[in-house]
């Protein structure tokens, strides 16, 4: 199971902004280790975000997304206390899901 | 009269006290430095031992007394080894590649790795490279402004070989003196600065 995500979701004027930090190596498969051997590719392939169970974003990543991926997006709606959940899946089959409550943006 | 004498005495005693305290702290700092480093990779603890130049520049915060500075600069200059074949200019393209590399001699480098020139870390050289440092002066158009007479070539070779022979407490390393760069590498760097075809001397 991957390491916990840091998710923030804040609503303002009817728009919820979601900021997600995912802890992941995002190995390209092209990098060599100190001994000169290729480090196998290991990266998040899919990210899904839901608001109260409804999908609000689907992302697919390639190896070019930076280590410890960061993602920001916005959707219409959302209210204080409602839930935003985020899940990712990587190419080794590892996965992680976390959720937060929406706060009001000041 | 008496008052002044007293004052002078008081002042000098303060200074003497400060100097004593400083000396004690200097000694303690040196003990700490000599004790608290460990060998790592190619970087061994003997590297923290200072030679005369390093000790003097540390002691005087890079502004040593003139007489001492002159004496040591002369010694450093006398130790510069110029190429036996008399040729001082190599291949500027190889020099540019070398100038770009900041590698070499750290504990993450390996024995026998090619040491880089580290030039762009501190100097502007080619107008094409925007990622240049400013610890040293800009060397843009170096040869274009100064020509490449034999004297100029000798000066540049010597300066890269041992910058301390020209300015004792300069920040610039003594690349040839300590054996970081080879004779042919230094020649390539001389060419980078002085060859009219070098990028350094183009618009």
């Amino acid at each position: 199971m991957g390491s916990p995500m840091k998710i923030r979701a804040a609503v303002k004027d009817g728009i919820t902004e979601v900021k997600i930090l995912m802890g992941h190596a995002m190995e390209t498969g092209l990098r060599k280790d100190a001994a000169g051997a290729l480090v196998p590719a290991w990266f998040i392939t899919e990210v899904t975000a839901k608001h109260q169970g409804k999908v609000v974003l689907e992302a697919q990543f390639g190896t070019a997304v930076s280590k410890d991926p960061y993602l920001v997006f916005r959707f219409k709606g959302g209210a204080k206390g409602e839930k935003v959940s985020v899940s990712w899946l990587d190419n080794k089959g590892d996965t992680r899901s976390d959720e937060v409550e929406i706060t009001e943006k000041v | 009269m008496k008052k002044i004498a007293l004052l002078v005495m008081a002042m000098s005693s303060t200074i003497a006290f400060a100097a004593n305290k400083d000396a004690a702290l200097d000694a303690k700092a040196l003990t700490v430095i000599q004790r608290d480093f460990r060998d790592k990779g190619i970087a061994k603890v003997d590297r923290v031992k200072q030679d005369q130049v390093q000790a003097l520049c540390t002691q005087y915060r890079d502004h040593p007394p003139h007489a001492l500075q002159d004496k040591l600069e002369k010694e450093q200059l006398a130790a510069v080894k110029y190429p036996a074949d008399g040729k001082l200019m190599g291949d500027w393209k190889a020099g540019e590649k070398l100038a770009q590399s900041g590698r070499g001699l750290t504990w993450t480098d390996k024995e026998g790795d090619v040491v880089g020139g580290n030039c762009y870390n501190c100097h502007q050289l080619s107008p094409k490279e925007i990622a240049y440092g400013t610890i040293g002066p800009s060397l843009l158009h170096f040869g274009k402004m100064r020509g490449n007479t034999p004297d100029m070539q000798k000066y540049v070779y010597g300066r890269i070989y041992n910058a301390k022979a020209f300015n004792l407490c300069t920040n610039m390393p003594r690349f040839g003196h300590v054996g970081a760069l080879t004779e042919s590498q230094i020649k390539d760097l001389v060419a980078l600065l002085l060859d009219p075809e070098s990028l350094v001397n183009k618009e």
Partner: protein
Amino acid sequence: MVNLERRQALKTGGALGLWGVFASLGLMPSFAHAEWNKTLFSAKSMNEALDLIGAVLPETSGDIQLNVPEIAENGAVVPISVSSSLPNATQIMVFVDKNPNVLAANFNLPAGTETFVTTRVKMGQTATVIVLVKADGKLYRAAKEVKVTQGGCGG
């Protein structure tokens, strides 16, 4: 291929213990909508990627705002922000034309999700970031060059 097999297992409610735990917690991730397109993510050039999408490179559009730094201090993290006023946008694709695999990320935007995304990508060298936005079934483009510079002491 392993990936495909595993996905099959997922779809059929595969028996992996981990997934059972998730399901029981009500945290079962759902990735059923869009498949990770291995072929497209392996494309080595913009032309190859466009062929796979079945499109020609669209004209650049003033209706897409692509915010990238002109100079990146480090190619490992190049921040990218895309937004667009194009109506009915459903997809944002981010490419880096000189990367070994040109497609960096794809975003599917359900109705109600703004045409806006910020993320970070790796760039091996100075290259052009190309963004394609699909709106009303049509592709639009924005592109900007990012210079990747040599870092610190170079070591």
